[in-house]
């Protein structure tokens, strides 16, 4: 699946929920099932400091593919982190740099990416792109 197919898949998953409560409950579940983050990477280097919640993002690059693992101290943020990892991890740098992210808006979570929320998510997305750009220039 390409990035847009995964985005469409997420949009479809969320379409089955009737109200916001179910959507957030699903996000909480996603947050809980996010792959564990290596504690050794919980360092300032990988920390994306938000005012409201913190996000850690650890990239690795092998055989032309970027893998991200991530973590947050807030569960809902973690759920959205899980979605972003699902979309961006296991991609080539070119795919990430060229991606147009629309699923967050479509599943009604746009407010979570507003700069004033300062929960680390917007910065996380930027950081993913920056890593991709850096790896791309190394290729």
């Amino acid at each position, binding site marked *: 699946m390409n990035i847009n197919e995964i985005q469409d898949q997420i949009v479809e998953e969320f379409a089955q929920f009737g109200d*916001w409560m179910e959507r957030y*409950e699903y996000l*909480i579940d996603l947050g809980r099932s996010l792959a564990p983050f290596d504690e050794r990477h919980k360092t300032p280097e990988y920390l994306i400091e938000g005012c*409201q919640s913190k996000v850690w993002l650890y990239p690795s690059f092998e055989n032309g593919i970027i893998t991200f693992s991530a973590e947050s101290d*807030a*569960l*809902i943020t973690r759920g959205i982190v899980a979605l972003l990892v699902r979309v961006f991890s296991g991609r080539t740098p070119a795919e990430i740099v060229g991606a147009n992210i629309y699923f967050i808006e479509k599943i009604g979570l746009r407010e*979570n990416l507003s700069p004033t929320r300062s929960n680390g998510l917007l910065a996380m997305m930027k950081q993913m792109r920056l890593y991709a750009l850096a790896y791309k220039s190394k290729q």
Partner: protein
Amino acid sequence: MKLAKSIEEIRSDFPILSTKAHGKPLIYLDNGATTQKPLQVISVMEELYRTTNANVHRGVHYLSDRVSDRYEAARETVRAFINARSREEIIFTAGTTASINAIAFSFGERYVGEGDEIVISGMEHHANIVPWQMLCERRKARLKVIPFSEEGVLDLEAYRSLLSERTRIVAVTHVSNVLGTVNPVKEIVAEAHRQGIPVLVDGAQGIQHGLVDVTDIDCDFYVFSGHKVYGPNGIGVLYGKAELLNELPPYQGGGDMVANVTFEKTTYNVLPFKFEAGTTNFTGAIGLGTALDYLSALGREAVAEREQVLLAGATAGLSAIEGLRIYGTAPHKVSVISFLPGQIHQYDAGMILDKMGIAVRTGTHCAQPLMERYGITGNIRASMAFYNTEEEIEALVKGVKKVTEMFA
């Protein structure tokens, strides 16, 4: 004490309270961050722009005279509201932050040198920390911090021992914006005065919850923001004792603050104008005067009593939730309650409450050192005003219960 209006009448004075948030009736419990404005304030601002707009103190013409009179009347309203001795002791600024910075600068210029000490408390808002740190850096002075107990009560014993012959000024908050603690500012001032040290009181969270009498407190400076006391934003007050203000150099130069300007030498205007450089926010000041009149007409003691009832309800309701911890349990508090339900992150809880239409504040509330004191990264704060209702408090408690279920 009874409020001069019924709760229905009061709520209809605040049109924003009938907002729907995410399709639910808005429950506004973030009054510590900013308060809502009554129609009286909203309409006076509009009326000013419609009928009475001209620059203050700068014309002999009809409109300028009229607006200048009203600006000075607002100053008198503020003076009476905080019981200052004279109108010249009331300086209009942009807000609490601006007032503290003004004093940290002017006072620092005049009185603070290398090795001197400034005493603040551990429960200060960043606005009453950073300007003093900046001053300390400029002057190579030192910051001393009064500790407080787990309940959120300042350690006065420690305070006394912090005062020394190097202490130049004490700056403490009247009321903690996180813990709700009302500090014994009168005692704090008396103690400092015994050693000839002036005291600045940050009244940002004090002014809106009852009577503030600066003559009784005997503080040297008292500062607050209009937007936290039902007035407009961008306006605030710096009260200072005239003897002291007269000694301080102005912190901004410009129009209106001068008596005579030549390229060789400029002499300054008298108080309060010496500290009001440039075109001031006169519409804001008049709006603030209207807000204070509104509170006085409602009955300030009645407002405080009403808020105590809401605080007691919220405290009882929230304490009954298993695993919930309240930060700030001082015997003397205003209607501010900070808490964390179990291990749930404040941001998670805040987001769910928001979806229920409940506005609370989450995070560090601009008081990071205080959060560190408790070993937390932030918490949730509900801050109540007289226009809140018992039903809203119940909804908050129910909402927090729901949050604990969702994240259990």
